[in-house]
C-alpha cells in the first residue's frame, strides 16, 4: 500500500509476528530509566495540582486572578484548550476510519488515549471554576425534591451534555478498540497479576470469527457515533462564547472556527507526543515519516481555516458597522493585551506556514517545533478570546485588567502534569499502537516492499 514517492506506513522488513513482539514488549518488559524519571516528574506536578485544588476549595475562587469584569480566566481558557486537544483522537479514529485512511492505524491508539486524558483534564476545569464546586452537580438534570431543573437556555448546560457525551463515547471507542490487544497481552504476559488483569479486561476475547464480527460492527457503529461528536463538542463549547452578547464572543463564525482550531490543536499535540515517543520506544518503523507528513498537512489546512477565522473576525468588526465590535478588534490589536495577540499570530498563523515545505514536514524535529508553537498559540487564542473581550466591554468605567496568579499557573501546569502522568501510565500498561490493526496492514505493505522483491 505504498504510494510511489511517499514514505511507507510501516517500515520494511516487518512480519505480523515482529509487529506483535515489538509493540507488546514495551508493555511486558521493564520500563527504561527515563520513564521513571519522566513519570516521577509528572506525578510531582499532579501533587502540585492537588495542593492547588485543595487551596482553591478551602479558600475560594479568589486565589485566582479573576475580577469583575474578567469573570473567566485560566480555568475556562484551559478547559477550551484541553477540549480542543482532545479532538484529534476521535477525529483520527472515527473520521479517518470511515474514510478508510489506513495510515491512521499506528497513531490512533495513543491519539485516542490522549483524547481521553485531555478530556479528563478539560472536565476538571468546569467543575473547579465555579464558586461553589461542591454544588456543580446542579448543572445536571437529575430528579430532585426541589423539582428544579437546570436552565436549558444556558450554553453551560449544553456543555455538560456535550462534554459528558464526548467523554463517554471516546472512552467506549477506545476501550472497544483495545479488547483484541488486551487479549494478546493476556496471552503473552508472564506474571500472574498481569495475566489476570489483562484477562479480566479482555472480556474473554478468543479471536473467534463471531468475536471479530461483533467487534467490527460495534467499532464501526461507535465510529459513526463519534463522528458527529467531533464537530458538536467544540461547536457547543464555542456557544459558551457565541451566545453571550459580548463583542469578541458574539460571532456566528465561532462554531466552525472553533472546530478547526480544535483539530489544529489536536494534531499539534499528537505530533508533540508522537515525535518523542517514536524515538524513545524505537517505533520509527510504525510511526513513520509518512504519518508525520500527513499530520503536518492536516495542521496546515486547519491552521489556514483558523487564520481565516481571525481575518473574518476583523472583517466582520468593520463590516457590521457596530462600534463595540470594531473597538474590540482595535483593542486586541492596540490594547494592553496586544502582545498576546501578536504572539498568537506568530504561533498560529506564521509558524504553520513552514509546513508548506516538505522538508519541514518530513523532519520530525522541525515538525515538533511547529507543533509546540501551535500548542502555545492555541492557548493564547483562548486567552485572547476570553480575557481581551471581557476586560474592556461596554462601559469604560468598568474596564479592568487580568493576570493569572501563581495558583492559576499551578493548576494549569498541574493539569499538564496530570495529562502526562496518565500518558506515561498508558504507555506503561497498554499497547500504544494497535497491534492487531498493524498486523492487518503489514501484509499489504510488505508484499510490495522492495526488500521482499529482492528476496
Amino acid at each position, binding site marked *: 500500500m505504498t504510494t510511489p514517492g511517499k514514505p511507507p506506513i510501516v517500515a520494511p522488513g516487518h512480519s505480523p509476528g515482529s509487529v506483535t513482539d515489538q509493540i507488546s514488549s514495551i508493555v511486558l518488559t521493564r520500563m527504561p530509566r527515563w520513564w521513571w524519571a519522566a513519570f516521577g516528574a509528572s506525578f510531582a506536578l499532579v501533587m502540585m495540582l492537588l495542593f492547588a485544588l485543595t487551596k482553591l476549595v478551602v*479558600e*475560594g*475562587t*479568589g486565589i485566582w*486572578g*479573576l*475580577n*469583575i*469584569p*474578567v*469573570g*473567566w480566566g485560566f480555568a475556562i481558557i484551559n478547559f477550551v484548550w484541553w477540549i480542543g486537544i482532545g479532538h484529534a483522537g476521535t477525529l483520527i479514529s472515527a473520521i479517518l476510519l470511515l474514510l478508510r485512511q489506513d495510515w491512521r492505524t499506528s497513531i490512533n491508539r495513543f491519539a485516542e488515549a490522549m483524547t481521553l486524558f485531555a478530556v479528563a483534564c478539560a472536565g476538571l476545569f468546569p467543575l473547579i*471554576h*465555579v*464558586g*461553589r464546586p461542591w*454544588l*456543580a452537580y*446542579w*448543572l445536571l438534570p437529575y430528579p430532585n425534591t426541589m423539582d*428544579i*431543573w*437546570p*436552565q436549558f*437556555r*444556558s*450554553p*453551560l*448546560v449544553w456543555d*455538560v451534555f456535550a462534554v459528558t457525551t464526548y467523554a463517554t463515547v471516546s472512552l467506549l471507542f477506545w476501550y472497544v478498540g483495545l479488547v483484541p490487544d488486551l487479549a494478546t497481552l493476556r496471552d503473552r504476559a508472564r506474571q500472574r497479576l498481569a495475566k489476570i488483569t489483562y484477562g479480566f479486561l479482555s472480556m474473554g476475547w478468543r479471536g473467534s470469527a463471531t468475536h471479530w464480527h461483533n467487534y467490527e460492527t460495534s467499532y464501526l457503529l461507535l465510529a459513526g457515533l463519534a463522528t458527529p461528536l467531533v464537530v458538536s463538542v467544540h461547536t457547543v463549547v464555542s456557544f*459558551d462564547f457565541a*451566545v*453571550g*452578547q*459580548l463583542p469578541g464572543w458574539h460571532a456566528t463564525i465561532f462554531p466552525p472556527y472553533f472546530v478547526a482550531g480544535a483539530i489544529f490543536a489536536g494534531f499539534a499535540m499528537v505530533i508533540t507526543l508522537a515525535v518523542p515517543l517514536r524515538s524513545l520506544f524505537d517505533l520509527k518503523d510504525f510511526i513513520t515519516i509518512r504519518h508525520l507528513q500527513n499530520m503536518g498537512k492536516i495542521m496546515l489546512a486547519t491552521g489556514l481555516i483558523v487564520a481565516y477565522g481571525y481575518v473574518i473576525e476583523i472583517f466582520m468588526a468593520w463590516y457590521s458597522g457596530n*462600534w463595540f465590535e470594531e*473597538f474590540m478588534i482595535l*483593542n486586541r490589536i492596540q*490594547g*494592553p493585551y496586544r502582545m498576546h495577540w501578536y504572539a498568537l499570530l506568530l504561533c498560529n498563523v506564521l509558524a504553520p506556514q513552514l509546513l508548506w515545505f516538505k522538508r519541514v514536514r518530513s523532519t520530525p524535529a522541525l515538525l515538533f517545533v511547529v507543533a509546540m508553537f501551535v500548542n502555545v498559540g492555541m492557548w493564547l487564542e483562548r486567552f485572547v478570546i476570553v480575557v481581551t473581550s*471581557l476586560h*474592556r*466591554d*461596554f*462601559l*469604560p*468605567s*468598568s*474596564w*479592568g*485588567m487580568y493576570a493569572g496568579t501563581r495558583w492559576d499557573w499551578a493548576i494549569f501546569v498541574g493539569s499538564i502534569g496530570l495529562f502526562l502522568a496518565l500518558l506515561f501510565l498508558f504507555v506503561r500498561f497498554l499497547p500504544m499502537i494497535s497491534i492487531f490493526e498493524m498486523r492487518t496492514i503489514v501484509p499489504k505493505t510488505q508484499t510490495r516492499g522492495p526488500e521482499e522483491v529482492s528476496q
Partner: protein
Amino acid sequence: MTKIDHPAEDSSTSRRSRIDLAAMRERLQGTRGPRFWRSLDELAETEEFQQLLHNEFPEMGVELPDGVSRRRFVQLMSASLALGGLTACTRQPLEKIVPYVEQPESLVPGRPLYFATSMTLGGVASGLLAESHMGRPTKVEGNPEHPASLGATDLFAQASVLSLYDPDRSQVVTNLDRIRSWSAFVEDTRSKTLADARLRLLTGTVTSPSLAALIQQVLSEYPQAKWHQYDAVTRSNLLHGTESAFGRAVATRYDFAAADVVVALDADFLTSGPGAVRYARDFMSRRRAAADHPEMNRLYAVESMPTATGTVADHRLPLRPSQLASFAAALAAEVGVPGASAPAGANVGSQGEWLRAVARDLQANRGSSVVVAGDYADSEVHALAHAINGHLDNIGRTVVHTEPLEAQSEGQTGSLADLADDMAAGEVDILVMLDCNPVYDAPVDLGFTAALRQVGRRVHLGLYRNETSEHCHWHVPAAHYLESWGDARAYDGTISLTQPLIEPLYDGKTAAEVLSVFTEEGSRPAHDLVRIYWQAALGETGFETRWRRALHDGFIADSALPAVDVALRTEAAAEASARIDETGQITDGVDLAFRPDPTIFDGRFNNNGWLQECPKPLTKLTWDNAALVSPALALEQGLENTQIVEVTVDDRSLELPVWILPGHADGCMTIHLGYGRTRTGRVGSGSGFDAYRLRTSAAPWTVTGARIRRTAKRYKLASTQLHSNIGLAPGPNEEPGFGVEGEEAERRHLVRVGTLENFRQEPDFAQHMGHTPPEDLSMYPPWEFPGYAWGLSIDLGSCTGCNACVVACQSENNIPIVGKDMVAMGREMHWIRIDRYFEGELDHPDVHHQPVMCMHCEQAPCEVVCPVGATVHSSEGLNDMVYNRCVGTRYCSNNCPYKVRRFNFFKYNDTETPVLELLRNPDVTVRSRGVMEKCTYCVQRINHARIEAEKEEREIRDGEIRTACQQVCPTEAIVFGDVNDPESKVSAAKSKPLSYDILAELGTRPRTSYLAKLRNPNQSLEKT
C-alpha cells in the same frame, strides 16, 4: 427581688453580661470568705455585687422618660442568670429567652421601629431617623422634618452604624493601660481634682447648649479652669470673615432655592460642611428644567481641587489657592464693591474675561445671586464675599446671618496654641480631652505631644484608643451617638436632640457624663444632664409634652436661630483688599492645600471600612490618600501616577504617592487629611499618609512654597476606575489625554449632556444620541407585567457624586468590604457605583457622575446564560438573584453589559465577629463565598410595602417604596416606582424628554433610565 415590673428585650445585654460574668468570676475567686451562699439575695446584697450591677446597668443609663423601669428588670434578670451560671459545674452558654409578659404595643418582631436622633460632625448636627430592629439600630435615614436633612443624609451618617458596632472600639475604662471601672475613674477624679486645680478642657466645636452650660458650670466651679476648642477641620475662617465684614461674629447660611446665580469661591457647599445636605437639595431644586419651564440657575466655581460643586458648575475655573484671595478682590472690584481693589501685582489676566462675565452675571441678578466662600478659604475671601453679597442686596434674600452656632466662637487654632504653651510651661494640672485626638491632628508646630507630657493628669474620652489615649493616664470609652443622650445645633441653629437607640455596648460615656464628674453634683447620667438643662431652658409649664414632642421629632420646633440684622462695614472690602495686597504674592514652589478627606474626614472615620472603601469622588481612590496634582504639574515635574514624592514645607517633609487629577489647578497640590494613623483599629491601620505632619497652625489649609522631590519608589494605590491609567502617564510620543476610556465613554453616549439652549430648541436631544432597537427583535417572547412593574430613573443633572447612595446601599444590603488588595484587583462589592467621566480638555474638563446599579433589564442577558436558573425574572420586572441556587459560574457577570454584578470571590462577610451580627439588616441575606450578588432594587423594602398594602387591601402607593439609594439622596436624583402606573413619579421622570437608556442599542430594555444632564452656560463664556 424577683418582682418583674416589665419585660425587656435588650439584645446587647447578653454579650455584655458575658463579659462581666468573667469579671465577676474573677472577683468571686479573689474574695476570701464564704464560697457558698444561701440565696441569690445574699450574694446580691454584697457591696461587690452591687458595684458590679451598677457598672453593668448604671442608673444614669438609658432610662425611658415614662418612668417604667426596664432597667431594674434587666439588672435582676441578669444577676440571677449570671449567678446561676456561676454555680453550674460547666460553663453554659448564656442565653436569655424572656417572653413578654405584656407585649409592647408597637414592637412587632420583624418590623423595624424608627426613632429620631441626630449626629454631629464638627459639632453641627444633622437630623436622622434610626431604624431599630428588635432593639438594635441597623440603618439610619434622614429625618424628613429636620431642616438640615429633609429626609436625606450624607455618607458619614450612613456609615455611622458601622462605627457603632466596630469591634475595634475602645471597650473599657483604663488607667495606665490597666482596666479599671468607671466608678474607679469617678472616685479617682473627684478625689484628685482640687478646687484650685489648673484644669483644662479640650473639646471639638461645641454647639450643644446643655454641654456648653455644663462646661460653664465646671469653669465656674474651678476658677483656674479654662476651656479650649479645637477641630482639625476648623471653620474659624468663617467667623473671622464675618468679624471683619460686619464687626461681629455671625453665622452665615444661604438660601440656594432663591438664588439664580451662585458663585462658589473654593466652596464645596454641595457636599461638605454643615448644611450641605440641605444646600444640595435647595440648589438642585433650581436646576431641573422642564419642557414647560426651561429655566435653571447658574453656578460658577473657582477652586483648586475639583469638588462635587465644581463638577456641577456651569463654569469652573481651576485656581491655585494662594491666588483665590486676589481673585475674590478682583471680583469684588469688578462687581463694584466700594473700596475693593485687585491687588497690584495680581495676575488675573487669563481669568479676566471669566471674571468680568461672572461680575456682569452677578450684577444682572441683584438680590437673587449669592457668592459663597468656602470653609477653607482665607477670612479675607469671606469678608469680600460678604461685601459682594451686601453690595448686591443679597443679604436677607439669599444670605441670612444669625448668631453663631458655636457656644463659644473664639479662634480655635489660637486656643489650642495657648493650651500647648501653657502645658509646655507646666501650668496645667489636669487636661481633659473630650472626643478629640490632638496628638494626631494638632498643628505640627505646636509641639502638642511634647507639651502634653508636662501635664500631671491627662484624661481622654474617645470612641477608640488612639494616638492621644496612648499619652493619657485615664482613657474612658466614649458612647457612640446612637448610644447617647445629647443635643446640638443644626446648620441653621435648630436644636437637634440625640437619643440612644441601644444601651452603650461597651460602657461608653458621653462628654457630658465625663464633665459631670467634675461638678459639684458629681457623676450624672447623660439623660438627666440633657433633660434638666432643657427643663430649665424651656420652662416647667407644659415641659413634658414639649419634651416628648421634641424627642419624637428629633428637634425642638422653631428653634432655628433667627436672622440678625448686621450692617456691612463700609471699609471691610478695602481692608481685605489691602491685606491681600500685602500677603498675596505668589511664591516659588507649589501651593499645598489640605482638605478633609471626602470619606474619612479628619481621620475620625479612619477605622470605618465602609468609608475607607468608598471610592473618593473624582479620584476613585480607596483606602489611601495621595498627593493630587494637575496633569500639567505632573508633566512639568515628570511625575507619574503612584510615584512616591517627597513634599517639603520648611523643614518638614512627607513622602506620599502622586495621583494625577484632571481639572486640578496648576501649581498646587492637594493632600487629604485623616490618613497615616499610627494608632487605630484593624481596618484603618497602615492606610495612607499623614498630612498633619506638614500642617501648621499658621496655615491650616494652604501652604505656599512647598517643594516636590521625585523618588524612584512606587506605591500601590487602589482605584476603582482607570485601573490601567492609560493616557495619564503618556509615553514619549503620546499626547496626554483621557485615554481610551475617555474617548470611548464619549463615543458611546453613556452620559448625555446638553446646554439649556439645546434643550429649549430640541428638548429630546438626548434621545437622538443613541439608537433603540424595536422591542420585538428578541428571540424570546416579551415578559408580561400585569401588576406592578418597578423602574428607576436617575437624574444625572442632579447627581453630585457625593457617595451617600453608595454607603446607604452598603448599609441596607449587608454589603461587605473587601480590603485594599481586593479593590486593586477589581473585586469591590458595591452594588451601586458612581461612574466618573471626564470630558473635554485635560486641564479643565467637564466631569460627569453616573450612578450605575443593576438595570433590571426586561431582556436580561444574565438570565439566559445562568445554567442553574439562579438569576430569574420576577413578575414585576425585577431581575432576582437566588443566592441559594447560585453555584458561581460568573457567566451572568460576563454577559452583563453594565457590569453591575459582584462576586464573592472569598468569604467577604465577617460572620465570626459577634458584634457585627447586630449590624446586619435582618431582611437581607448575608451572602457567602462563591455567590454572585447585585442590586435588587431593595426588594426587601418592596416586600414590606406589599405586605402592608395587602393587609390593608389596597395597591402600593406611589412613593411608599423608596430604595435605600433614593431615600438617602440629598438632591432627590433617584426616583423609584411603578412604571405601569402612568401617574407615578417614576413614570413622569421616564416620560421626560431628557430620559434615555444606556446601551439601549443592545436591546436589553433596562428598567433603570437616566435623565440627561443640562448645563446652563453663560453665553459670553461659552467655548466656541
